[in-house]
């Protein structure tokens, strides 16, 4: 029972699908951020796995940068969230429809 690359990729895909469910299902902005983090992490796993199985460090580098970006995204995102919350007193996605076409 050797664990191969495909195992990791399938795992990554499942996590990604969970993330997608979260992204689509959640109506709360904060929860949406959670779901996004799941998506990012799902991808990170596949990067790390590919990096490992091909003996190439590029994947790990990518993971590194993805984490960095995720961190800054959270920082800015939360800031915006707070501003929004201060202004509208909620963080419900259904209330955010100023971009109606």
């Amino acid at each position: 029972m050797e664990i191969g690359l495909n195992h990791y990729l399938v795992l990554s895909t499942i996590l990604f699908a969970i993330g997608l469910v979260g992204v689509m299902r959640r109506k709360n902005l904060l929860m949406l951020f959670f779901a996004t983090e799941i998506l990012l992490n799902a991808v990170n796993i596949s990067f790390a796995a590919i990096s490992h199985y091909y003996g190439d460090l590029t994947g790990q580098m990518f993971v590194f940068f993805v984490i960095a970006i995720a961190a800054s995204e959270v920082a800015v995102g939360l800031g915006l969230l707070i501003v929004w919350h201060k202004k509208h007193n909620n963080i419900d996605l259904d209330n955010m429809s100023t971009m109606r076409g």
Partner: protein
Amino acid sequence: MELFLYTALFSPLVGSLFAALFGASPKTKIAGVVPSIMLGVSLLSSTILLVLVLTTGHTIHVEMMTWMATGNLYIPFGFVVDQVSVTMMMVVTLVSTVVHVYAIGYMDHDKGFNRFFSYLSAFVFSMMILVMSDNFAGLFIGWEGVGLCSWLLIGFWYHKESASWAANEAFIMNRIADLGMLIGIFLIYWNTGTLQYDGAFAAMANLDASTLTWIGIFLFVGAMGKSAQFPLHTWLADAMEGPTPVSALIHAATMVTAGVYLVVRANELYALIPHIGLFIASLGAFVAIFAASMALVNRDIKRVIAYSTLSQLGYMFVAAGLGAYWVALFHLMAHAFFKALLFLGAGNVMHAMDSELDPFKMGGLGKKMKGTMIMMTLASVALAGIYPFAGFFSKDLILEVGFVEHHYIIYTVLLFTAGLTAFYSFRIVALIFHGEERYKLFGFHPHEAYKFMLVAMSPLLVLAIIAGSFKMTYFDMVTYVLPATEYHVHNHLVYWIMTIGTQLFVILSIFYAYKKYTSRDVKVPDGTSAMENSFKYKLLINQYYIPYFYEEYLVKPYRELSEIFWTKIDQKIVDATVDGIANVFYQTGEKTRVMQSGNLSTMLKWMVAGTVALLSLAVVFGLAARHSGEIKIFLSGLGV
């Protein structure tokens, strides 16, 4: 000698430009005098050239400069003075000089005096180009140039609706014919490789008959327009809206004869295709009687003379069509003199009668206008063809040509027309100058024209009388370039019977007309007499309903079709299709806009849906790439 050629050609242009300088300013005598002098110069130069050609037999051929040159095409501004063109130059310059001088008096009170002379001289210039050019393209320049000037001059009194309408009609009708001419020129170019007369005619001898026939037909279509042959004749009568000197110069003496000139110039071509020549002659004979019949009843002196012109053009085409080119040219010349004289006389009458044109409202004017009466009577005699006036020598010659060439139907038609001609000519002479003084009823105060106008007309009078005596000199001259066929009835008895018979017939017609229209019974027609209600009269007075037919079945449908093209096809179909295509995109956007609800959650769902779609595509293409071989086999199995 080139100097004289250029002087003859360009002095009218100088005169025209000079008058044009005063175009916008109020009437200045000098704007009329200078163009007249310039025309005198042109006449002098033409005379010198004539003498030169006459005495030495030399022709002058110059090439001024290149006009168009591209590919194998080479068209210069080339001019030739040979026996034919010098004849035309003489006619043109002489008549136009007379008309210019006359017009100084005639247009005396007109606001557009300066403009008039500018146009008139420009016309002469165009006409000179037309007759002097040594190639078809140059001919076409003059051809269109005279058309332009004719448009300007017919519509000279542009404030009159009828005048501007007639001008446009003339221009457009001429354009229809010009298209034929243009096509003829194209045919000549692609078949002979040149548009120079000498080169083209030389090459034509080697062409096959059908090509030549087409060339002949198309060129003649051009001639039909300019010379107002049936069915393009209606513009000529309407063109009488222009000032009378214009009618005299353009619509009697010069421009309308351009068609005849073209056929004469292209004699080498038409000699090769006698069947077309016969067609031309037949059409000419038809037009001669057709126009004469309309002249019988018309109640507008200028229109009567116009129909008479048309009829005489028919004569010329008979001669030209039957190969008697020199006869045609001779009649053209003689006709120019007496017809211009007739028109100018009519101008005097109009002047006296405050532009009244109905001869029934005149009568007895002879007492007040003796000079004019004499001139018009003599011109009418010449037109009728009484010995020894000019018309006898030229017109009877055409009858002889018809007889000698054994075209007896044409001969009979022309003979009969000669009688008609005499009748209608003297009908108006009688109505205007003799009989009761009916004008008094309408309160006119006629007066004779200025002396110098009459003096100006006198050269024409002299020529109308004596032109016939130049016949032999003329024959000797032009037969350098034209076929020198003599037309004599060999049997002396027949000859004398014919001549005297014709003369008697004509004289009888004159007397009949004179008697009928000088009687005391002549009344101003009021539409009640039995004659006026007869079908024949109505048919003739309405010009065989041809203008009506054109208006109803050509002009109106064209106008309506245009309207339909614009409102229905252009806007409703073509443009609507374009807008429809644009609308598809617009509506798609409108519809799919709903997707963009602005709700982040919904949009995320769409995003995922899009991802799924893209992923599916990737899978499908991946599979297709992997299994392309099998797919091909499968598809070929299906017969695709």
